[in-house]
């Protein structure tokens, strides 16, 4: 059988070969590429809703609306904790001594150099508002503790000063500031 088929092929010169080589693209090549392209676009389009559905939903975003905090009851030297977007926000009424300590630091010696007056609103050095989440792995630091009498994170030992700047430990950056503004002299809006 095999020999006969071979013989048949040999004698059939001029007949079209069964498969084409690279010379001419065929309709099948076109179909392969077109199908694969449409399929790839389909997969990419399907990924968009799948990934987006895991991002914060509308109710979570709505619950993250700005909040107002009355500063009146916060005594000098007191740090209060409020929640915005599920994050603890420290509102610190700093004493003269704490401001002094924060401003007398040699900036070059800091891991994340930032002057204290850039971390408070102008003319309000006594009010400091920080996101109270350790920049290492997200624990909540404890106020009025640690070597610099600022904040100390119990999880992995990061130490922040009275301006919330990282001084020692594994945290890479200073405690971040939330977006906020003074609505009046004794009220702020966070968010």
């Amino acid at each position, binding site marked *: 059988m095999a020999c006969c088929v071979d013989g048949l092929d040999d004698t059939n010169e001029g007949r079209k070969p069964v498969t084409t080589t690279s010379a001419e693209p065929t309709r099948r090549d076109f179909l392969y590429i077109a199908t694969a392209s449409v399929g790839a676009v389909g997969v990419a389009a399907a990924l968009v809703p799948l*990934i987006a559905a*895991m*991002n*914060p*939903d509308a109710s*979570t975003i709505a619950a*993250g609306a700005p909040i107002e905090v009355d500063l009146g009851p916060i005594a000098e030297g007191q740090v209060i*904790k409020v*929640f915005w*977007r*599920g*994050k*603890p926000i420290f509102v610190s009424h700093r004493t003269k001594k704490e401001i002094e300590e924060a401003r007398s630091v040699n900036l070059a010696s800091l891991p994340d150099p930032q002057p204290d007056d850039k971390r408070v609103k102008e003319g309000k050095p006594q009010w400091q508002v920080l996101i109270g989440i350790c*920049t*290492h*792995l*997200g*624990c*909540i630091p404890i106020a009025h503790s640690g070597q610099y009498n600022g904040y100390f*994170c*119990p*999880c*992995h*030992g990061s130490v922040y000063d009275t301006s919330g700047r990282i001084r020692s*430990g*594994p*945290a*890479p950056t200073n405690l971040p500031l939330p977006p906020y503004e003074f609505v009046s002299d004794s009220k702020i809006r966070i968010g």
Partner: protein
Amino acid sequence: MSGHSTYQPQNAFMKWMERRLPIAGLIHSSFVAYPTPRNLNYWWTFGGILTFLLGMQIVTGIILVMHYTPHADMAFNSVEHIMRDVNYGWLLRYLHSNGASMFFVAVYIHMFRGMYYGSYKEPREVLWILGVILYLLMMATGFLGYTLPWGQMSFWGATVITNFFSAIPVVGESVVTWLWGGYSVGNPTLQRFFSLHYLLPFVIVGLVVLHVWALHVVGQNNPTGIEPKSAKDTVPFTPYATVKDAFFMMCFCVVFAWFVFYMPNYLGHADNYIPANPAVTPLHIVPEWYYLPFYAILRAIPNKLMGVVALGGSIVILAFLPWLDTSKVRSANYRPLFRQFFWIFVLVCLGLGWLGAKPAEGGYVIAARILTIYYFAHFIIILPLLGWIEKTKPLPNSISESILKEGLPAGGSGPAPTVSKH
């Protein structure tokens, strides 16, 4: 090792079935007639124990889910409801939570056994790598499950672990927000963790099938580390391995039951009986015991990104073990130097585990740094060098020669299907 099945269907139905779906033949050739080295010791029983534990975790888990509520406001109370109201709920939950610990006890023994006897070496590299992936999946599943009771350790463990991803440059914060489904760990986080905690065990089951398949292609390693050469070197899986596995599984279950019935909370943390409070971080936050060595490595490094990279690297490096160990001899029984370094490595891992539970300060941090360096040096320096400088002991000619010390004419050339020649 594989060969054709010797399975002979006994009745008409099985004959009918075998021609259509030869599953009985597959089981017979894999778990009955399968030739297993005759010198396997009890360290080889942990694969079976792990399979049993996986099944037990799935069964107890499925029933626990019938009573659990995955919602931030209700999860904690639903777990207490399981403990107090559900018939045998206390037992199911303690079996499940202690089962996770036992799972890790068994997997660590299984892994150290593989390291001691060189089970990862050619041709078992893929088998070993599948095992490393399984271990990673186990860690993920254990972590996700620990979040579900929504106690203080659940909440803060979830916060710390998900924050690992915030170390990624540029996109870290967006990735973490995406993982949380919010701006902090909260109800959306708990619900997706529950979904994934239910999913992953079945992914593990699938990979276990691949793991066992790969094992049955290359065959089991054995304490001598040399391949079986004749039928005299092996025994059929059933009854020999079956009864040995089953016997030791029962011994293991005695220990398991001792934990479940007499000290069910010993391996947990009292803090997890306090409902999750996003305002207060527990003063001493520690992961479950089975993650402690890696936690110590994370804390040993005074840089966030590098700490996370080292933690990941300490696990990923296991996948490269088949190529980092340059020795041609598999079993530590014939590698006097490696055997000493192996036990040092075991002690280093235990030391890191102990340090992981200690506060990150003073001497503990220094010790953790030294042990972290040694951990990596074991893989990157010691193992490659040992292959070159170590003088190994002579290997026996065959498995049967190694156990029949009288010196029977072991191994030889041809196959020896019968021993009735004498």
